[in-house]
C-alpha cells in the first residue's frame, strides 16, 4: 500500500515539468522550498512546542550564505553552497537557541520575532556583504560540468534535495531523537524523569530546525535568482507558522501538505493584493475551527474511518 503510493508520487514529481507550463515548474520549486522550511519549523514548534515567528530570518541566513558562497567562488558545486547555507543557519540556530532555553510560549515567540527583524536589519546594513537594499543577484547554480540554468533543472535539484530532507525527517521523528522532542512537548517533567536532557534536546531542535530552513534558503536563492531583504519580512514567518497549523502540528507529511496549500494559495491570490490578508486570515481561522489537527489529522481520521 505504501510503496505504490510513493512510486506514483515520485513519478508525478519527475513528470511535472513536462506536464506543466514553466511558471508552474517554478511554483513547484517554491512549494519544495517552503515544505523544507515547514518541516524544520514543525520539528521546533509542532514536535518540541517551541514557537518561532522568526523563521524568515533563518531562511534569509541560508539564502544569503549560499548566494555569497556562489558569488565569491564561481563554479562552486551547488551541493557545497547548500551545505554551507545549512551549517551557517544551524550555527545561528545554536546561537539563538541557547539563550532562548529560558523562554517559553509568548516570550519565545517575541524573541524569535525580534530575531527575524534583526536579520533583515543586518542584511540592509551589511552592504559590503549583502548589497543591502539594492539586492543581490545569485549566480546560476552549478553541479560539476552542468549549469542549472532552467526552471526545470532547478526544479529537479529542489525535488532531489527536498526528497532527501523529507526522508531524513521521517527517519528522525521515528527514532530516539524524535521521541525525545515529542516527550518534551507532552510533559517536561516526565521527559526528564525518563532521562531526556531538556536543554540539550531543546537546543538540538533549534539547530535542526535552522539547518532545514538554511537548506531551504539556499535552494530559494538559486530558484529565485535574486535576493533582497524585503523578501524575508515577518509576514513570511507568519506564513510558515500558518503552513504547519494548516498542515498539522507534529506531522512531516502535514508540513509538506500545508506548505503546498499555502504556497499555491498565496500565488493565486497575488492578483488580489488587497484581499489577500483577508482571505488568508479567514482560511486560517476556518482551518483551526474545522480541522484542528490540520490536514494530517483530517487524513488520519478519514483513513481510520
Amino acid at each position, binding site marked *: 500500500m505504501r510503496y505504490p503510493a510513493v512510486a506514483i508520487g515520485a513519478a508525478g514529481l519527475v513528470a511535472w515539468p513536462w506536464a506543466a507550463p514553466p511558471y508552474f515548474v517554478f511554483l513547484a520549486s517554491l512549494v519544495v522550498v517552503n515544505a523544507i522550511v515547514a518541516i524544520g519549523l514543525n520539528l521546533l514548534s509542532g514536535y518540541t512546542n517551541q514557537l518561532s515567528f522568526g523563521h524568515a530570518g533563518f531562511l534569509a541566513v541560508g539564502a544569503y550564505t549560499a548566494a555569497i558562497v556562489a558569488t565569491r567562488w564561481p563554479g562552486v558545486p551547488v551541493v557545497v553552497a547548500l551545505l554551507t547555507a545549512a551549517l551557517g543557519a544551524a550555527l545561528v540556530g545554536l546561537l539563538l537557541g541557547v539563550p532562548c532555553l529560558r523562554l517559553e510560549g509568548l516570550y519565545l515567540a517575541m524573541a524569535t520575532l525580534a530575531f527575524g527583524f534583526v536579520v533583515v536589519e543586518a542584511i540592509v546594513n551589511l552592504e559590503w556583504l549583502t548589497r543591502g537594499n539594492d539586492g543581490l543577484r545569485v549566480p546560476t547554480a552549478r553541479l560539476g560540468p552542468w549549469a542549472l540554468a532552467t526552471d526545470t533543472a532547478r526544479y529537479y535539484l529542489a525535488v532531489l534535495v527536498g526528497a532527501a530532507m523529507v526522508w531524513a525527517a521521517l527517519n528522525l521523528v521515528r527514532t530516539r*531523537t524524535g521521541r525525545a522532542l515529542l516527550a518534551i512537548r507532552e*510533559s517536561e*517533567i516526565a521527559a526528564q524523569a525518563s532521562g531526556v536532557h531538556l536543554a540539550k534536546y531543546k537546543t538540538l531542535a533549534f539547530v535542526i530546525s535552522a539547518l532545514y530552513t538554511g537548506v531551504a534558503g539556499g535552494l530559494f536563492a538559486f530558484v529565485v535568482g535574486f535576493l533582497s531583504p524585503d523578501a524575508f519580512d515577518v509576514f513570511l514567518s507568519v506564513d510558515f507558522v500558518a503552513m504547519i497549523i494548516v498542515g498539522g502540528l507534529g506531522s512531516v507529511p502535514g508540513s509538506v501538505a500545508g506548505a503546498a496549500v499555502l504556497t499555491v494559495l498565496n500565488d493565486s491570490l497575488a492578483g488580489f493584493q488587497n484581499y489577500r490578508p483577508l482571505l488568508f486570515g479567514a482560511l486560517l481561522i476556518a482551518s483551526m475551527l474545522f480541522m484542528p489537527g490540520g490536514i494530517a489529522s483530517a487524513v488520519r481520521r478519514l483513513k481510520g474511518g
Partner: protein
Amino acid sequence: MLSVDDLSITFGGLTALRGFTVDVAEREILALIGPNGAGKSTVFNIVTGLYRPSSGRVTFRGRDLLALPPHAIARCGIARTFQNTEVFRRLTVLDNVLIGRHTHLSAGALRGALGLPTVAREEAAARDAARALLARLGLEDAAGLEAGSLPLGLQKRLELARALAAEPRLLLLDEPAGGLNPTETQALMEVIVRLRDAHGLTIVLVEHDMELVMGISDRIAVLNDGRKIADGKPREIAAAPVVIEAYLGGEDD
C-alpha cells in the same frame, strides 16, 4: 542504597520538610505514609531533582544526587511514577514505553536521520522489548492507542511500564493505587512484589491505601507536617500511638 539525610525545604515561607532522614536498603520495599500535605511527594521530587532542598543530603549508591540535574539522576537508575499521572498523552502507548528506554538507546540525531542499519536494528530490538514489557503488564492490546485515551487505571499501569522500561535499580511510586478499585489494587500489589523478587528492584512508594501499604511493605516511614514521626515494620507502625494520633488528627483530609 538510597540515603536521605536531614532534608529541609520551604516553599515561600511554608516548610514542607523539616530534617527528614531515611535510608533505603537494596531490595527493600519502603512505604512513605502520612496525612495529605505531610511532604511525601516532596521527598520524591527532591530525590529526582525537581526541587532543591534548603539543606540536607541525598546519596544514591555513593553518588550525591543533589549535584545532578533530573535527567542525570534518571541515568543513575532511578525511575518514578507521578501522583497525577504524567503519561505522554498524545503519543501512543508504545512510544511512551520507548521514551522510557531513552537512556538505553544510543542513536543520535544524525544517525537517526540517516536511518543507518545499526539504528534500525536498535529500534527493532527496543520495540520488541517494549512490546514484551507491555504484554507483561497486560497492555499489549493498547500498544497503538493514544495514551491520553486510556482510562486512569491503565494510564497508571502505562506509567509503571514506562518507568520499568528504563530498567531502574530504584523505583519511586507516587500513589500507585490512587483511583484503582480493590481488585486492581490487589493485582498491583502482586506486580510490585514480583518486580522486587524477580528483578531485585528497590521500591519506595507513597500510598494512602493502607491495605496495600501493610500488605507489601518491608518497612514504613510515617511523615507528619514535614517530620518523620515513626519508622519501622508494618506491625510496629500499626500499633504506634504517635501514628494513630497523627492519623486521627488528620482524618479530615
